[in-house]
């Protein structure tokens, strides 16, 4: 069976299940008796197994199966949850994640068997049950189940493999066959293969059935007739027919139906006793399997249907979401973008028209258009928004592992998981956050003894708070640890030769702390497994700046540190101030503008031969944008300068521009990867008249 088209869904759903397993296991660790949790774990594990089996990932299926066995025993109250058990289960989850990683990269699960984990699982199972006898059963049953499941998987995956043998014929059907045989009527198993490119498989199947009806009695089909009608089959299906017509005749009739690739017909030879025997056996096996797997509603004989059914029961625990192809969203985004461009065009016409005479209808139209575009924009943005929960919910598990590894007791408190961010940001923000949390756990928090000595509660706390602040989303990673030792950082900087001791003395604490974001700067004396290789905070900073945000560190010695990340709520559309430099137009994001000032030439002062102005008591450096951007010189001799004051965090700068055009909603577009982009240009936008204006990233100027 070609399952590649389901791969994406499989990966997504597996991720969800693994996440849910991780979370529930954490709960289980603290509340071992919570039967609700155990049930949910069991369901998730079972769905995973079914899905892996359907997709033909046998190693993954085997591991989940063994884990499921353990869950099953826990659920039945035969085993209790121990710390060791949870550790092994977490290892198992990691192994599953590794499989998933392989699958994501190469559509193949890889060759790692994780025998050690499976052995551990089985050991725990044996010890937990504490009996010899069950051990035997345990060892037999997984084997059996796996073979049973893999046989079906194979049968499904190899379409050349005849299905006839796998058809289980029920008692009454056997009787019918035997009866027919007595009357000289033959029973055939017919397996019909349909061409891969066939679109209306159900219709073809219907025609096959129609052809067969004329020949004899169809007594059974696999899958069920209803499923065939609903196209719930792959490229083949089998039927049992009682007929007097010869094999060749049947074959030619079926082959007459178009898009049928092949037909395999096998006669059912009925030895009365034998048939009954084998059938009973088959029945027994399938029943046994059902017993063992707990109260599964469906045997793995129909792996596909099984997972579908399991998914239905598991539904309430996975988040209800519609998966939307990001490409489709991008198209939608582009449409909205153009709508806005069109609107801007109208606005500029209207501005020109106003000077002469204009009808009010035209203005009404514009207002209407404006309302529509704003709404459309908002709703599309909402589709793109994902709660930050999907990123942060793996952190409790991480902190738990870190706590064990570092031998420090710590707790993670999270708030604002429901805060929403753009999908692209969500995808990127995970690593930086993880890094900050690791930092907090490893360097931030002191050991439990040190904490006690310092008069703090022994268990360290790490806080992850997300909230919306105007047009930004703020994520704070906070700890109540030792904080950053500014003197130590200074010493380190001098040691590294980054600056002289005098320079270091002259720097403010804030500047020193900002040094932490410089490349290759780690204050950890010892490089540990967890963090401290000096590739940390600068990478975090780069990543966050690439997302259009910024990061700031605040720290108090002995009280802890706080890393504050600010991210823009939306990435694609923003408000900007259009300015003119010579004959060129540039857009400055409104969010970073503080004020706009008229400054007399004579007010410019010099500090260390740099131009500054004194604005209401604050000294602000001036930036000659036309020089930086190498704008062709134009003749100008102005008394007054127009200065746009922009800020980044606490720092400010005054950008000198020639002219202000006005505020506009602009659509941000990339200028492509081939052209060398220096950091000053954050993108481009299309103005109402079709002209392209570049967007300045003022962060690089301040």
């Amino acid at each position, binding site marked *: 069976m070609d399952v590649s088209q389901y791969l994406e869904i499989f990966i997504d759903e597996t991720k969800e299940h693994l996440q849910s397993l991780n979370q529930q296991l954490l709960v289980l660790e603290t509340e071992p008796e919570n039967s609700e949790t155990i049930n949910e774990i069991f369901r998730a594990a079972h769905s995973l197994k079914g899905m892996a089996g359907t997709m033909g990932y046998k190693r993954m299926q085997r591991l989940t199966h063994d884990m499921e066995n353990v869950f099953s025993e826990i659920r039945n109250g035969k085993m209790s949850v121990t710390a060791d058990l949870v550790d092994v289960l977490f290892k198992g989850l990691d192994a599953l994640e590794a499989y998933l990683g392989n699958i994501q990269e190469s559509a193949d699960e890889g060759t790692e068997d994780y025998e050690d984990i499976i052995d551990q699982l089985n050991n725990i199972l044996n010890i937990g049950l504490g009996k010899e006898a069950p051990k035997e059963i345990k060892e037999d049953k997984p084997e059996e189940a796996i073979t049973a499941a893999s046989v079906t998987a194979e049968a499904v995956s190899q379409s050349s493999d005849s299905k006839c043998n796998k058809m289980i014929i029920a008692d009454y059907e056997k009787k019918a066959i035997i009866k027919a045989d007595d009357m000289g009527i033959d029973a055939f198993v017919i397996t019909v293969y349909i061409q891969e490119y066939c679109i209306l498989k159900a219709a073809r199947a219907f025609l096959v059935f129609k052809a067969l009806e004329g020949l004899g009695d169809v007594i059974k089909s696999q899958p069920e007739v209803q499923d065939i009608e609903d196209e719930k089959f792959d490229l083949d299906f089998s039927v049992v027919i009682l007929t007097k017509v010869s094999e060749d005749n049947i074959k030619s009739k079926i082959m007459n139906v178009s898009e049928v690739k092949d037909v395999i017909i096998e006669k059912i030879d009925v030895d009365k006793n034998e048939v009954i025997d084998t059938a009973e056996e088959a029945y027994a096996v399938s029943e046994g399997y059902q017993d063992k797997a707990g109260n599964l509603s469906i045997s793995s004989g129909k792996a596909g249907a099984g997972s579908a059914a399991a998914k239905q029961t598991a539904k309430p625990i996975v988040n209800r979401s519609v998966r939307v192809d990001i490409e489709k969203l991008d198209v939608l985004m582009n449409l909205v973008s153009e709508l806005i461009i069109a609107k801007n065009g109208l606005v500029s016409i209207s501005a020109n028209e106003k000077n002469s005479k204009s009808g009010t209808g035209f203005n009404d139209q514009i207002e209407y258009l404006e309302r529509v575009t704003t709404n459309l924009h908002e709703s599309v943005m909402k589709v793109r928004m994902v709660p930050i929960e999907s990123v942060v919910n793996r952190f409790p598990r991480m902190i738990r592992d870190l706590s064990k590894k570092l031998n420090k007791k710590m707790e993670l408190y999270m708030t604002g998981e429901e805060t929403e961010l753009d999908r692209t940001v969500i995808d990127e923000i995970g690593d930086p956050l993880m890094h900050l949390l690791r930092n907090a756990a490893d360097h931030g928090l002191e050991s439990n003894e040190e904490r006690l000595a310092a008069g703090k509660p022994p268990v360290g706390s790490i806080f992850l708070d997300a909230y919306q602040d105007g047009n930004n989303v703020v994520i704070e990673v906070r700890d109540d640890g030792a904080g950053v030792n500014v003197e130590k950082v200074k010493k380190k900087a001098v040691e590294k030769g980054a600056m002289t001791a005098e320079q270091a003395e002259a720097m403010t604490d804030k500047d020193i702390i900002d040094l932490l974001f410089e490349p290759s700067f780690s204050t950890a004396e010892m490089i540990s497994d967890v963090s401290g290789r000096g590739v940390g905070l600068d990478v975090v900073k780069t990543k966050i700046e690439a997302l259009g945000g910024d990061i700031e560190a605040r720290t108090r010695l002995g009280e802890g540190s706080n890393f504050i990340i600010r991210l823009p709520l939306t990435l694609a559309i923003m408000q900007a101030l259009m300015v003119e430099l010579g004959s060129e137009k540039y857009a400055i994001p409104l969010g970073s503008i503080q004020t706009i000032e008229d400054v007399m030439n004579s007010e410019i002062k010099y500090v260390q031969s740099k131009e500054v102005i004194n604005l209401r008591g604050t000294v602000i450096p001036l930036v000659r944008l036309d020089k930086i951007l190498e704008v062709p010189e134009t003749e100008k001799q102005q008394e007054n300068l127009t200065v746009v004051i922009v800020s980044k965090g606490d720092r400010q700068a005054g950008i000198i521009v020639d002219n202000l055009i006005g505020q506009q909603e602009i659509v941000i577009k990339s200028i492509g990867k*081939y052209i060398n982009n220096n950091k000053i240009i954050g993108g481009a936008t299309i103005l109402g008249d079709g002209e392209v204006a570049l967007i300045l990233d003022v962060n690089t100027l301040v």
Partner: protein
Amino acid sequence: MEANLIDTKQCIVVKTGNEQYGIDIMYVDNIVRMQRITRVPKAQPYFKGVINLRGEIIPVMSMRLKFGLDDDVITNATRIIIIKLESQSAVGIIVDEVKEVITLDDTMIEKVANSAVEDKYGYLSGIGKHKGGLISLLNIAGVIIETV
């Protein structure tokens, strides 16, 4: 249609300076007239800037500057060839003139290595012979992607 079964290549022939260049039609998305270009500060010198092509921002390079010729003189015949190497990112190339579309088969193409032509930058993929004239077939990826 039968002729397509032989290994043939369709090329757009453009003229820049005194030379004729062939661009594999596979990579050509569009050919547009010259339009207003917005300068991008501090970009590579041969990048003229960016244009707006039906709502998409496309960087535009000058073939003349890239090949070390004089700066473009914009005439009525000047065109921008929009090249799409990958589906997501397009780039425009300014040429003096677009002449025609020709079909070349393998026998009409000479490998650069066999010829006396020097191609130290990897800009060429071969020399095409067509109606007695020579056409330098561009290795478009080599021209567009910076190899510094």
